[in-house]
């Protein structure tokens, strides 16, 4: 279990909170900023925003995709956090408080998108290009764009709660305990959601491969 805890921030997601003493110092600084922001200090809230935007941006990109609505959701998340700050009692870290809001906003958005039954539109090349390393060769960039387009398409087929659990645990490397805290569920439920998501994606990949083989056969 201890080794799992050390794996909490292993995922290569930039802007994740630091570990150990630095994290404690950051928490203290956060507390001071949160207290000031709750009293209406806009500069303090902007500082919190500056510190946490990369984390929220990364998480939202994975959860809802890099489409235009992501930026609107980010704004909504920080506004919700700003409005909720006077009620934030400080019994959790600000990062947890903010991540919970982010996850709720993402989940609501995905549910709405799913209910609307809008046909999945492949992501624009320009959006995918922003996710690709700028120094890669043209060929490599094209290949990475294609991989990302497929990855997001697979994620889109998964139900929101499973998708979010999968992104947190399988992609971002968050521990089951921490994911459970963020999702307000128990660790076993989160684990089941991740496993179901994996199974569904595996089945989708298999079906896609079968279709590809069938097309090859037709030729």
């Amino acid at each position, binding site marked *: 279990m201890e080794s799992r805890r050390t*794996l909490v921030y292993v995922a290569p997601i930039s802007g994740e909170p630091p570990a150990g003493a630095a994290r404690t110092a950051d928490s203290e600084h956060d507390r001071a900023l949160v207290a000031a922001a709750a009293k209406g200090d806009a500069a303090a*809230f*902007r500082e919190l925003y500056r510190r946490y935007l990369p984390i929220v941006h*990364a998480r939202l990109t994975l959860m809802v995709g890099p489409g235009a609505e992501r*930026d609107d959701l980010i704004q909504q998340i920080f506004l919700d956090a*700003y409005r909720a700050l006077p009620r934030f009692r400080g019994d959790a870290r600000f990062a947890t408080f903010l991540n919970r809001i982010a996850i709720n906003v993402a989940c609501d958005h995905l549910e709405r998108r799913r209910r609307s039954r809008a046909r999945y539109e492949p992501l624009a090349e320009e959006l995918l290009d922003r*996710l690709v390393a700028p120094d890669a060769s043209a060929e490599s960039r094209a290949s990475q764009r294609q991989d*990302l387009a497929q*990855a997001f398409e697979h994620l889109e087929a998964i139900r929101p709660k499973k998708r979010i659990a999968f992104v947190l645990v399988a992609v971002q*490397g968050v521990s089951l305990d921490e994911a459970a805290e963020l999702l307000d569920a128990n660790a076993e439920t989160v684990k089941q959601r991740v496993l179901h998501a994996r199974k569904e994606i595996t089945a989708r990949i298999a079906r896609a491969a079968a279709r590809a083989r069938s097309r090859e056969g037709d030729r």
Partner: protein
Amino acid sequence: MNDVRSGSNQAFDETADPVEARVIAPLRRARLEPDDLQLARLGAALDTALQSAALQRARAPEPAARRARRGAIGVAVAAVAIAVLVAGPWRHRAPPAGTARPVGTPLAIAYESDARALAAPAPRAMVVPAGVRQRGRIGERVRFTLVGPGEVSAFAVGGGTEIDLARGRLLVDYDGHGGEILRVRSPGAVTTVVGTLFAVEARGRASRVAVARGSVAVEGAGARTKQIAAGRSWLTEAAETEPIASDLAVDLAAQDAAASPAGVSAEPVGVAPDAELPPSAAATAAHRDRPRRLAGQPRVARDAETAYAAAEELMRTRETTAARKALLDFVNAHPRDPRAELALLDLARLDLEAGRPIAARGHVSRLLATTKDAALIDLAHQIERRIEAATATGAE
């Protein structure tokens, strides 16, 4: 599969774990942090939204417990105020030092918004306790907010309107399109207005007048007259005008937002029976719909928000000609809006991509002349270098 996370970023055997190879690994390789332009855009959008949220928070009802406590105090204050008004005929208070008492017919003041319960429902005067903001109207041309502790009354004088501010902060949005003159008498000052958004604050024996839109003439002690332009404020005891203090600018922005169509209920509540009714509904609509611009502090403008959102959408969908026009319109219409700087940056990029480096240089120069944002300055310099390269190759 005890640990449902697959921990490392090594190459995966696709046949063994296709999910890892096809989904997890590509997503982990992705650059998920926002770039400088996204940071600047999101930051500007949030700044604007925060201004709006801060205003809403300031106007939001208090928590139940405090509200109940304040409610008891409010009821007591209201009871006292009503008792004073009911006790006898209209008793106007003594004129403030340095100003003559207005001579004319008392005008009715119409209360607006839900906060009226905390204020005394006076037909010809408005009295509000400390901590209360009460919106009101005098006829159809004067919309105001009185910040308590405050007291205000109004009179019709020679075809114009005179407001008597005994105490408190009065934020006024006045439509002078009918050619009528509005005067505000306050301690040590008489402010004459033709049509503008301004504030008068009674401060002991002196007054502070601040102008957000238009200009006003203020007559201070000793018949000293001062013309106050938009964005300036004047304390009648001071020699010179000064920029509007931030707290007052926020109040003026709130007053401006409240006077806009979305901020005013279609059917004003609590209109006294003898209130002066609008001379023309069309004139009122024209007043409400006219373009507004607030000096002193960038206000949260719904029209600006809509215009910028439209331009952003066109940028997203890569409709570059329409996006360019929308951005230009936005910059020209809202030059002081924080998003105008981002619009200039986008315009520079669009013009550069379209092979118009000279036009792009114009946008960059304009941006560098106004912005203090280090990230934007850096981006502007990057575009400048690209412009130089494009110019060297003979574009445009």
